[in-house]
């Protein structure tokens, strides 16, 4: 049975303190929030940080807010927001049902009590559901350091599997999702059992003008797609009539751009087939929601 290697522990009580601690330990420290990615890796000793910096006291970063500034309207989700909070949030359900779809299939209810939005994004697992959803939604991540803050598109956040563009002494503090009136969104995931990573998953949003696609975002998890985005499918659909044929072609384009790895979850042909089928379903359900049919 697996136990972690010796490690040191520090608890941060503010973002500034967390940044100081990160600075002090260089690259040898890891922030720990929910811990349900880091601790399993520590138990297997795949991760052996010198120090874990506990940021669970940063409750100031646990929020879901509508922000309405001049010309800019977005949903702001604090990085310490737990998965279960996102799942239970009416504001999120009202604007982006895709997030509820995804949260229902992220891990399990007990793990969702601890796991956080920031943690999921920063883990950058190629099968991370939330990364795919927020990529599809073209969300932004706010990253804070001792020098100030910067905003990075979630589509540009990951830098390879389990790597992000965050520097050693930076913290992701907030995710911002633009409000798109009339948008419909959906997430479709195939998993072997509850709590599993996806065999394949696709998330999409559409904004429709009558039957024309005014805006669309499509992203995929566990399919070997760079940054998860199905950009050709998106470009194809934008400005086009949302017909069955268009959906079929978009799904074909999305699947063609995948590079899934054959593994215990399935062979390449199966995963590509899922990419195609799940893209259709996500787009159709997103459109149904946009047009009030469901």
């Amino acid at each position, binding site marked *: *049975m*697996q*136990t972690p*290697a*010796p490690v040191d522990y520090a608890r941060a009580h503010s973002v500034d303190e967390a940044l100081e601690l990160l600075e002090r330990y260089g690259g040898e420290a890891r922030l720990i929030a929910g811990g349900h990615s880091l601790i399993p890796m520590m138990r297997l000793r795949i991760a052996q940080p010198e120090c874990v910096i506990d940021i669970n006291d940063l409750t100031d970063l646990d929020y879901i807010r509508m922000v309405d500034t001049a010309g800019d309207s977005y949903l702001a989700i604090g990085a310490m927001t737990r998965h279960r909070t996102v799942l239970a949030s009416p504001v999120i359900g009202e604007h982006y049902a895709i997030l509820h779809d995804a949260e229902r299939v992220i891990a399990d209810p007990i793990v969702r009590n601890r796991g956080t939005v920031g943690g999921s994004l920063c883990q950058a697992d190629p099968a991370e559901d939330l990364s795919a959803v927020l990529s599809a939604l073209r969300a932004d991540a706010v990253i804070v350091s001792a020098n100030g803050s910067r905003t990075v598109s979630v589509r540009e956040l990951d830098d390879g599997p389990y790597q992000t563009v965050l520097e050693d002494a930076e913290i992701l503090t907030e995710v911002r999702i633009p409000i798109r009136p009339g948008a419909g969104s959906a997430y479709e995931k195939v998993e072997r059992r509850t709590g599993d990573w996806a065999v394949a998953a696709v998330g999409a949003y559409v904004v429709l003008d009558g039957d024309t696609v005014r805006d669309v975002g499509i992203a995929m998890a566990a399919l070997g797609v760079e940054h998860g985005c199905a950009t050709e499918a998106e470009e194809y659909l934008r400005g086009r009539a949302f017909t069955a044929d268009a959906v079929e072609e978009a799904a074909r384009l999305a699947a063609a751009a995948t590079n899934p790895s054959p593994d215990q979850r399935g062979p390449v042909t199966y995963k590509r087939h899922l990419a195609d089928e799940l893209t259709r379903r996500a787009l159709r359900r997103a459109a149904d929601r946009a047009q009030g049919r469901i």
Partner: protein
Amino acid sequence: MTTTEERPQNRVSPAGNPIGFGRMHRKEDARFLRGQGNYVDDVRMPGMLESAILRSPYAHARIRSIDTSAAAALPGVHAVITGETLAGLNLAWMPTLSADVQAVLATDKVRFQHQEVAYVVADSEYIARDALELR
């Protein structure tokens, strides 16, 4: 006239045992429900030690040698046992219930991935696990 059929109530024999319809409540449940089970990992005895097993990453490989010195030197480790130790006591291969023999710890070679190669006995499962890293 209406008749209703009532499910017979649980009856109890003169000795106090439930009879007829209904079911017998298990005697052991109360203890389990209170977290007072005594599963193997719950057993605590004075001076009890914990262990960890080193397993082969290879499916089929000859064992040239096993250096147990670093593991044995770790504070809190009481013993590092290999197939060689057991072979000296005629315990490396033990009879099974199917009238054949099974390797307890690999001696000359490993024959399947994760076959047991060494056994560390230490003060805690944490220290025992630490010792596995030291080769």
